[in-house]
């Protein structure tokens, strides 16, 4: 195994450096996800601005997503359309980028359009990225270029993390002075993990 040590160490080092900023992003977002009340107090969302206008016609396409895309193109807004709600007269949807939510509301009868912009800040930007692409609205997820790309970046990060953990264990095992205490710590982590699962289930 020792003949692979140098290769694995180099790969571990370079891959770790490559994904570390993204891991920091995910780690910070976990703290924001878990303590929304604290972060809302310290960094509240900035006041929304509302733009209202009236159009001659509403661009209607053969699917709701394409209609929503045509509407934001006409408004000059870019971002990921999160979900779409509609009834006979209204089509409404949030368009999100990390840190900004534009809530679009279009009245199909009188052609009134309103845009409510909310700046949620950098910390919530990390939670948005952490939650994307996510499990909801899978059929329309990745409707913006940056989330379509982010989907692949997230996969690369997760597979890299799995490689880093396995290679990390390999590298540790070949360090004779760290092996014995490492086994105790690995066992302690294992016991805590199993104990928590038993507590939950």
């Amino acid at each position, binding site marked *: 195994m020792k003949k692979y040590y140098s290769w694995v160490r180099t790969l571990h080092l370079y891959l770790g450096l490559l994904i570390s*900023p993204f*891991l920091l992003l995910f780690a910070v977002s976990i703290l924001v*996800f*878990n303590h929304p009340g604290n972060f809302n107090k310290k960094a509240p969302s900035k006041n929304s601005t509302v733009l209202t206008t009236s159009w001659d016609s509403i661009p209607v396409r053969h699917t709701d997503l394409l209609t929503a895309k045509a509407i934001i193109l006409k408004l000059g807004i870019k971002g990921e359309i999160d979900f779409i709600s509609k009834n006979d007269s209204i089509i409404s949807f949030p368009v999100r980028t990390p840190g900004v939510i534009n809530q679009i509301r279009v009245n199909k009868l009188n052609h009134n359009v309103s845009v409510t912009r909310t700046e949620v800040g950098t910390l919530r930007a990390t939670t948005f990225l952490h939650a994307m692409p996510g499990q909801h609205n899978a059929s329309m997820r990745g409707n913006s270029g940056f989330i379509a790309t982010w989907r692949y970046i997230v996969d690369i990060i997760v597979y890299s993390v799995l490689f880093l953990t396995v290679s990390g264990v390999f590298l*540790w095992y070949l360090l004779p002075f760290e092996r014995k205490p490492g086994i105790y710590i*690995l066992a302690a982590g294992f016991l805590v993990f199993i104990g928590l699962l038993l507590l939950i289930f």
Partner: protein
Amino acid sequence: MGDFIRKFLNLNRKTHIYFGLFILLFIWLFAVSGLLINHGEWKFASFFEQREEHKTDFILPVSMLTNNPDLVSQVNDKLKISGEVDNLKITSGNIDFRVYSPGKVRDIHINSMSGVGIIKEMNYNFWGRLKTLHLFNGTSKADPAKTPNWIVTKIWRFTMDITAVVIILLCLGSWVMWYRIRSEYKPGYFLLAFSLIVSMYYVFFIDLL
């Protein structure tokens, strides 16, 4: 090299190894469950369609249901259920709330006039439990001020926090370790700069460009 720096570097190296080993299983859990959440198209891991549902009727003393500040916990004790309580709605004649834990959701409806109630329970399979563990922190999108009200949720949320803090330490520690030997690993400059630029672009500049 000063003694203090030597000690710091040694401590950083040991921290990187031992903390990494300690949270190994937690990282695997969150990595695999994250993949499952992002890949709903992986049919082998579908859970909602394969959920088990059943209903249980019950009757509680009406005296327990009126003017009782400790209503939910007493009802849960009586029904022998535990979990994170959410969506409590008390209207004239009706009490509704949800009690959930990873892989298990119970919606409880009680007629407070008669004491008659029903529990609608959903149980998820292994994959559903895994996915819900990833998301189980006791917060609510609808009510950001909500904090966990079940001790197990509090412990699990603390575990997530610790995992996040350890990941931050591992990442920053890895930069220190690379910096020491940077002359032997020069591509590290490019890789770190590249990923910092891409990650910062996603966080700060998507809206501007």
